[in-house]
């Protein structure tokens, strides 16, 4: 038994006889991610504006039949290329069709061609990414070689190539955009999985006896969700442009269906006399894409600092 050291000053401090209890939950108690997001969206004008824009576009697209003042396909040669007026708030195109109505109906197409491929690509890409990242080995190598090959082509060019090969049409356009986007998500999610795999909690799960499948399901996937949401949102913006580009070139939906990219294309001939025919849809594409990007960043900021409530590490002053 070591004698009480005489070098340590005998400090008469009463012993803590209470049971070992932590009654306060410690530092942090940080606001949840959704609260942070809400705060960002309401305070930051850019984020608020973007959320409003996207909300508007979505609602307009859903309520198109009720909202659009005119039938988008109705041709009226008497009012061709008319500028904005009380009758036609955004004017008419070269066939006398109301631009506002076409914009609203076109919103449906544009949103679908952006959101559906984004979602499908996200799911497919994530599955591949998780597989490659977690399983590793030859699975990883195979998947990543395919991904690398696809990614060595410029995004839009590859989409155009696939769409052209498949032929025009809405479905083919969506397919092309999906295929081109899957590798992006696969690579992203794989990177996230690789870093999660190094965490001690994964080791702990294995030590508890969790099978690979259980570990992936309960630990890996929930921890990649935030990345998926963020980059899904950001990528959707990019896909609005991709879809518009395809239909601009005549590869997407076919006329007479209203679509922003097609509207942009058809207004080219009359750019000098009636610029609004192209600029209105063009501006819309721009604003919607920007809105997705800004919102995506706001979401990333809200979800990113998972440890923001953890100040033990940060406040090591």
């Amino acid at each position, binding site marked *: 038994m070591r004698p009480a050291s005489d070098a340590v000053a005998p400090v008469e401090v009463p012993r803590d006889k209470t049971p070992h209890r*932590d009654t306060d*939950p410690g530092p942090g108690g940080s606001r949840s991610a959704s609260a942070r997001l809400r705060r960002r969206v309401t305070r930051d004008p850019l984020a608020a504006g973007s959320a409003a824009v996207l909300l508007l576009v979505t609602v307009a697209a859903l309520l198109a039949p009720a909202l659009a003042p005119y039938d988008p396909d109705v041709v009226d040669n008497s009012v061709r290329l008319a500028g904005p007026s009380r009758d036609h708030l955004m004017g008419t195109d070269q066939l006398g069709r109301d631009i506002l109505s076409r914009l609203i109906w076109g919103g449906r197409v544009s949103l679908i061609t952006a959101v559906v491929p984004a979602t499908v690509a996200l799911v497919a890409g994530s599955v591949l990414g998780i597989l490659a990242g977690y399983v590793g080995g030859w699975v990883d190598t195979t998947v990543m070689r395919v991904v690398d090959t696809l990614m060595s082509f410029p995004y839009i060019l590859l989409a155009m190539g696939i769409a052209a090969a498949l032929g025009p049409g809405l479905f083919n356009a969506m397919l092309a955009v999906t295929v081109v986007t899957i590798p992006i998500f696969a690579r992203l999610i794989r990177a996230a999985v690789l870093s999660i795999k190094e965490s001690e909690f994964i080791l702990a799960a294995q030590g508890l006896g969790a099978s690979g499948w259980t570990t992936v399901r309960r630990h890996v996937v929930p921890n990649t969700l935030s990345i998926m949401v963020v980059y899904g949102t950001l990528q959707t913006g990019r896909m609005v442009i991709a879809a518009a580009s395809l239909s601009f070139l005549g590869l997407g939906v076919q006329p007479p269906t209203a679509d922003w990219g097609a509207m942009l294309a058809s207004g080219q001939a009359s750019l000098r006399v009636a610029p609004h025919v192209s600029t209105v849809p063009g501006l819309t594409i721009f604003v919607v894409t920007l809105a997705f990007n800004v919102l995506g960043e706001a979401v990333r900021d809200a979800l990113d600092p998972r440890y923001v409530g953890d100040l033990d590490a940060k406040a090591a002053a």
Partner: protein
Amino acid sequence: MTELLVVDGLHKHFPAPRRGVGTVRAVDGISFAIDAGEALGLVGESGCGKSTVARTVMRLYQPTDGRIRFAGRDITRLSRREMRPLWRDMQMVYQDPYSSLDPRMTVTELVGEPLRIHRRHTPFDRRRRVVELLELVGLDPTFTHRYPHEFSGGQRQRIGIARALALDPRLLILDEPVSALDVSVQAQVLNLLRSVQKTLGLAFLFVSHDLAVVRHVSHRVAVMYLGRIVEMADVETVYSAPSHPYTRALLAAVPVQHPSERGRRPRALLDPGRRDADEPASGCRFRDRCPVSTAVCRDVDPPYRLVGPGHVAACHHPGTSEPAMTGATP
């Protein structure tokens, strides 16, 4: 025979990271045994391989060579599936309270996970058991729905301990469980570990670089250097009458406990001119830094000698280096 864990000639080698050739012999021939209810402290500086020992014994790594017997059964080559039921009896507490808990799970889910994996309880029983465990580790049971980031480091370690105890293990492997905590919180967690060890009669393999900490939780202590155990004895002996020059140097290097002791004793006993972590090719791996190394140390790897009852040291000249003044050692 009450030996719960027997490790015999354990080796774990990793492929060398940089030069691409050769291996890193993280664990290079370790043997020890832990009885049921006994706490063995494994002490050493960074790079000595102690964490690797912990993880290999836990079978998170596959041993390169040697044998591990747990509860009488040879677990050296078992697959993950075969290990699964054994992990009920042998659990681990990890070093980093910030990354050893899944940030996406609530406390209940975290502590209840082992119960869920091993399908031992109904959900209702699980909840009850979780509450029981939280009380055991001194956490307020009303916190069950909070997430790890809402807790302090010390509390997170308690959650980790609760999780490790969920299935009533017989052996707890602790890998630097308090190193990442503030000093004022370390004592809390160490006291908790002491009490849990006593009341539940657990065996411990307690790995740490901090000599003072190990002293309070262990019955016996093994000192590691570059993949080998260089000395092992009961805790009082190691701290008051160490025999191996490295152990003596370690103890001597600990800062004084009171300013009046400054300069009273020789402190940095090791040759500062050592080459970085390159082990010598032959003989005792400590010889380049050892204050008493001689020719035989250069040629012959020292065997374990019994230098006292229950006290072994791997040295050709045990007990001959400058004794660390023990007046203020931890």
